[in-house]
């Protein structure tokens, strides 16, 4: 393993401290519970929007804290849901008379820790509601399992709810927005390589030189199947079909298209993928109103990408276009 690490056990806290130092004045950091939050929060006149999930997916979700996005985030260790206490303290810290909205990615650990924390907060009279994000089409819904995973579509739910909360939307209105965006967003990813959590020191799974994992999860969970490496266009065709047919998206739909890097794939390759995805959208009659190409929800240094399509309506379009500022800046 070759990584920039001091002590694997301090990997997440040191990353959080770095994020804080790079944004002093705008963000605050509560090291005891891994909480990064807006310096001007909580704002008692608006709903607080928060999230806490495993680390290793940056910029999701801890670097999505900022005006028009999350008010606070309480990440856990690499690929591990935050302990209940982090979740509970984050709710308490962001407590507002307008309420707290917790956006939870659909993983069992995230759900259980947040469920326990929400129960405790409610017992103290805090107004708090949660919403579960599950946009990954690689996993088929089944009554035997917890269901689809939350992946890059998370970004759109955060963006829409963050913007609406900034405009003064109520907790119930925010839940309705989250429900609508989540119902209209679909994603699927492909991995070219594995990734190595610092504390593990070894790749999380093995993938041959000429192999790809189709439908990979953002923690290296296996996807639909393993395949031989194919051309970029053929890979896009497969995940585009899986994503577009799932909703299904229809000719004439206004959409947001995201090509999300999983951490180890350069922008050049992401744009090669975007090219084919955009061409496929044109062919299918989807009108790309907004596009996103870059790292939004990663899996450490995994080479790979995911494709996300979001069906838009006027309200969602306006929420996506609203100003926002987060810890990751391009200029």
């Amino acid at each position, binding site marked *: 393993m070759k990584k920039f690490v001091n002590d694997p056990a301090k990997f997440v806290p040191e990353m959080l401290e770095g994020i804080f130092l790079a944004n002093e004045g705008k963000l605050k950091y509560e090291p005891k519970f891994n909480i990064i939050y807006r310096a001007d929060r909580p704002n008692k006149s608006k709903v607080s929007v928060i999230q806490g999930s*495993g680390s290793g997916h940056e910029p999701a979700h801890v670097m999505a804290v900022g005006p028009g996005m999350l008010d606070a985030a309480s990440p856990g260790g690499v690929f591990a*849901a935050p302990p209940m206490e982090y979740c509970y303290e984050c709710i308490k810290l962001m407590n507002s008379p307008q309420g707290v909205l917790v956006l939870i990615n659909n993983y*069992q650990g995230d759900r*259980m820790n947040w*469920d326990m924390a929400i129960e405790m907060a409610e017992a103290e009279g805090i107004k708090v509601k949660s919403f579960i994000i599950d946009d990954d089409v690689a996993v088929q819904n089944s009554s035997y399992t917890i269901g689809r995973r939350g992946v890059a579509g998370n970004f759109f739910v955060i963006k829409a709810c963050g913007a609406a909360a900034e405009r003064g939307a109520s907790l119930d209105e925010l839940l309705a927005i989250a429900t609508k965006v989540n119902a209209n967003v679909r994603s699927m990813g492909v991995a070219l390589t594995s990734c190595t959590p610092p504390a593990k020191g070894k790749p999380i799974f093995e993938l041959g030189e000429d192999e790809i994992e189709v439908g990979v999860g953002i923690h290296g969970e296996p996807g639909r199947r393993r395949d031989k490496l194919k051309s970029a266009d053929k890979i896009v065709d497969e995940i585009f079909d899986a994503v577009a047919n799932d909703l299904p998206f229809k000719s004439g739909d206004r959409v947001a298209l995201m090509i999300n890097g999983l951490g180890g794939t350069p922008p050049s390759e992401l744009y090669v993928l975007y090219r084919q995805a955009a061409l496929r959208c044109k062919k299918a009659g989807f009108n790309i109103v907004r596009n996103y190409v870059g790292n939004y929800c990663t899996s450490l240094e995994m080479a790979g990408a995911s494709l996300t399509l979001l069906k838009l309506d006027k309200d969602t379009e306006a929420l996506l276009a609203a100003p926002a500022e987060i810890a990751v800046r391009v200029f």
Partner: protein
Amino acid sequence: MKEITLADVETAVKSIAATALKNEQYFCELDSYAGDADFGVSLATGFRIVEKDWSELDRSSIGNFLLKISMIITRNVGGCSGPIWGTGFMRAGALCKERTTITLDDLDKMLAAAIEGIQKRGGAQLGDKTLLDALIPIRDIVHEHVGKPEVDARDVLQRATQVANDAIEGTKGLVAKRGRQQFTGDRSIGTPDPGIVAIATMMNDICAEFGVATPASSHSNN
């Protein structure tokens, strides 16, 4: 050994903590076949603090001791392991807050409560290829001895360890339906479940701690 004392419970918990720390890498490795390879780290994170705070833990009763263990795990362990293991210790401890000794009848009730709490928290059932597939058979063995005060707890421990070991092989062929392993679907078939292996390994180590001959296990990594 007719009664289980606070000292016995302490010995068992200390042994469980040592097993978790000693097998940190191994449990991660097992979790990497079908899960996300963090199980060993999660478990060790909690039990490392149990070891660190060992001398200061509340020993006023078996229940208070177990509740303290639960609190350490719930507060410090994320992922699925924190809520699941924390809930187990909490439910068991809540039943014996006033007791410094317990009988097998009490242990039976404590295990049943822990199992019920874990099922409620994670939604898993027997056969979903989770640690419940080891815990439920263990509890069944203890339950067989309810109302038989003449039984030696050591014999029960040995039999319970045997069924935990059997659960490893017995569930290998199943599809994991809970936790992150569920996403691997059929690919989880043929691999042992890390939670079941952890329970079995802990049971074997507890046997060794109490001088009880351990049944054969192909999976301990000591």
